[in-house]
């Protein structure tokens, strides 16, 4: 199922997208729980089917482990767990979106891919802050987009993979290089 969808997305939309330079306003949308989330297509490297993940001990629970992407070893995080939702079983609809944020490759496990949408700036509204302040995932969501009668929560991948994660990792690398 997921693979069919992948194929569709890759052949239909991705090619168009890649040919068309203006990836602006294009969002890859996916479903987690009942909500629809979107991530700017410019971050997305590729989409792969779920595959065996090698768990790493002693890390935050949302870091599921490592996968082997054609010889490159990249970490994957479960977006559901990241949003502090109950983890759910991985099915054949579960996909990994490989994103590239500031040269760091990371896989995002999402329940189900939805589509690739063009969302006009006008349709994006900032998330309402009232009453939702304590809500955890608000910080990853930079906007709400309305398309028809559905609402998509647009994610900021840089916040999603947590800025400080990268910073501390970079520091460690630098320290190691120095010693």
């Amino acid at each position, binding site marked *: 199922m997921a693979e069919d969808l992948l194929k569709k997305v890759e052949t239909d939309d991705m090619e168009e997208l890649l040919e068309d330079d203006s990836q602006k306003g294009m969002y890859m949308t996916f479903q987690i729980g009942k909500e629809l989330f979107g991530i700017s297509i410019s971050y997305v490297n590729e989409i792969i089917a779920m595959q065996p993940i*090698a768990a*790493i001990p002693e890390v935050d629970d949302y870091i599921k482990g490592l996968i*082997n992407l*054609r010889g490159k070893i990249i970490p994957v995080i479960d977006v559901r767990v990241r949003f502090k939702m109950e983890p759910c079983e991985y099915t054949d609809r579960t996909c990994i979106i490989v994103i590239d944020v500031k040269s760091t490759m990371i896989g995002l496990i999402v329940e189900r891919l939805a589509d690739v949408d063009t969302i006009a700036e006008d349709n994006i509204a900032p998330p309402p802050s009232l009453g939702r302040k304590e809500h955890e995932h608000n910080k990853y969501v930079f906007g709400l987009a309305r398309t028809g009668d559905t609402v998509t929560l647009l994610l900021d991948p840089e916040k999603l993979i947590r800025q400080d994660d990268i910073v501390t*990792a970079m520091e460690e690398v630098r320290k*190691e290089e120095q010693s």
Partner: protein
Amino acid sequence: MAEEFNTESMLDMFLYESGQLLEKLEGIILEKQDADCFDDADINEIFRVMHTIKGSSGVLMYENITKVTHKLEDVFYYLRESHPDDVPHMELVEKVLAVSDFVTGELDKLKNGDTPDGEEKELVEDLDEFLGRLKGEIKKQGIQMPQANKHVEPTQFYITPVAGDDSHFYRISIHYRSDTQMSNLRAYSATYALKEVAEDLLYTPDDILSNEASADVIVAEGFHMLLQTKSSKEDVIALIDSSEAEEINFDELSKEEYGRALGEFGREEAEPVAAAPAAAKDDGNKGNKEAKKEGPKPGDYVVKTKEAGKGKTLAKNQPKQQSIISVNVEKMDALMDLIGELVIAEAVVLQNPDLKVPGLELSNFQKASGQLSKITTELQEVIMSMRMMPLTNTFQKMRRIVFDVSRKLGKDIELEVVGENTEVDKNIIEHITDPLMHLVRNSVDHGIEEDPADRTAVGKSSKGKITLEAKNEGGKVYISVKDDGKGLNKEKLYQKALDKGLIENKPMSEFTDKEIFRFITLPGFSTKEEVTEYSGRGVGMDVVVKNIQSISGRLDISSVEFEGSEMTLVIPLTLAIINGIVVQVGNSPFVIETASIKEFVRVGEDSLISEPSGEEYIVLRGECYPFIRLNERYDLPDSNDKIEEGIIVVLEHEGSQVCVLIDKLLQEQEIVVKPIPSYVRKVKGLSGCTQLGDGSIALILDIAGLLMHDGERR
């Protein structure tokens, strides 16, 4: 990604190329430092190096570098052409090193984005004086040039290029302003530009690159060219850089006039022409101290045809073919990843379930697949060997250090180098250069006795000896720095460590020799009373050990008092590949480096000792070892808790041992070590990850980390 690799600018090329050349230069110099003189090949090589650096620095307008290299080039030009005897070899070596240091310094400035503003004047004058003395000496002693320097010039015939009907002939004279610097180089760039369009080009003075005196001639008399070309006058004028020129005369000639002008330029058709070196030879023969000031004489003109390329000096030297190209490491790594992928993809194809249809005739397929496997295996071997580099360059740096430090300290030291061709992974070379430098400096400074009399008193030759040796044994590389100096004094080391409070207050007899020697690697330990320029701050040795440990190597120290010491770095051949054993705990595969495994045992519940605090120990043959259950440590589900059903692996790291409980052994294989992505925070006890044959990922256990972790927990 491609863009990342295309950022190399001209400056990068210059820095890279010059750096390489200087390294080569130092190599030659230091190799021959103890010889009496350089042989012809060396002189040619040094000349060529200087010539190249001069050329490229001239193009980039780094005048100080140009001047210095130019001067040294002069010196070697003289040596090459005149073969003077009695060259003060040591002085010459120093001069070359001084130039090399100067240029290296300037290159460093460029690398940091500064302007190369080093003062070259002193060095140039020094070289000038040296060259003067070389030439003077010959005059003074009246030595006839040896026969050997009747250098037979390759006879150059001139064949007039066929002049087409539409060819134009020009006589061009450029007069530079009298204060123009390096007018010869400017003239050269003019000829270089004209060569693009020229069918034929002659110029005088002809030796603008090899003879710096020509600069004076050009300023005084102008620079004259004869040009045969199809281009129009305007085009030609546009090609000539007129920035420093005072006046450019541009005459168009008829074919007949051109022929006559050729005669003026000293060229007769199809007749051998004396080349510039002959002029220099004459100068040498006369021993004329003023030779440099003299301009070339008529008749010294040389033929230059279009094909002359970069000038005859280069062509004559027959520069050695560069057989090395530099490749971005990222590209290499990408290639390595891809090849790894290829091997897996190959397995997927060859063991494809579709092939298992009964009754399928596959003999051709089998043949072809056998061939494919062979190629991929070879491909893997090649890419692995590409990462390996000989230690030659590293050792060369050490030669330089021994040379410098021993001269500064006034010690007479001979350096013997063994096995410099030993190949080590490039990453490792980067890590060992600094530690090795410390060790070599220490040996020169502390190892070898200050007073040669101390040496002869114990029956050693007065000349100190340091041996630098590299060898490859059992997947490890041993690099040792051995001196025949005074050795380590155990009492002194012990006393010092005690005084500084670096060790427990135990009598000396309770320490083994090895332990005592290891004191010198403690932070803040230095037995040298005085801090010298080179060593003695007591920061050296602990940094050495740290650096070596970071690449999972170790430092062995052995010493006999009055006979010398030996420091041996034991490092893995490569960081990229280790021989490992794949084990399974729960559902996760782990890799343990084979070298750190002492044994596998199965024990019963009765060998287990549990402390009330939860600490556990395993007793094996009367010895008690700390015990780690990997499944508990890393919280792995579905694993077995019963000690008699699992397997105990006894691991050793730097003398301490630990027992680890695993579920089962999977296989032994060579694995490619990859770092855990930096996004994931460092986990203690894991040193990396790897890809197994089936493409799944296994984590590599880091024994040192496990032990440390264990210690912390207590």
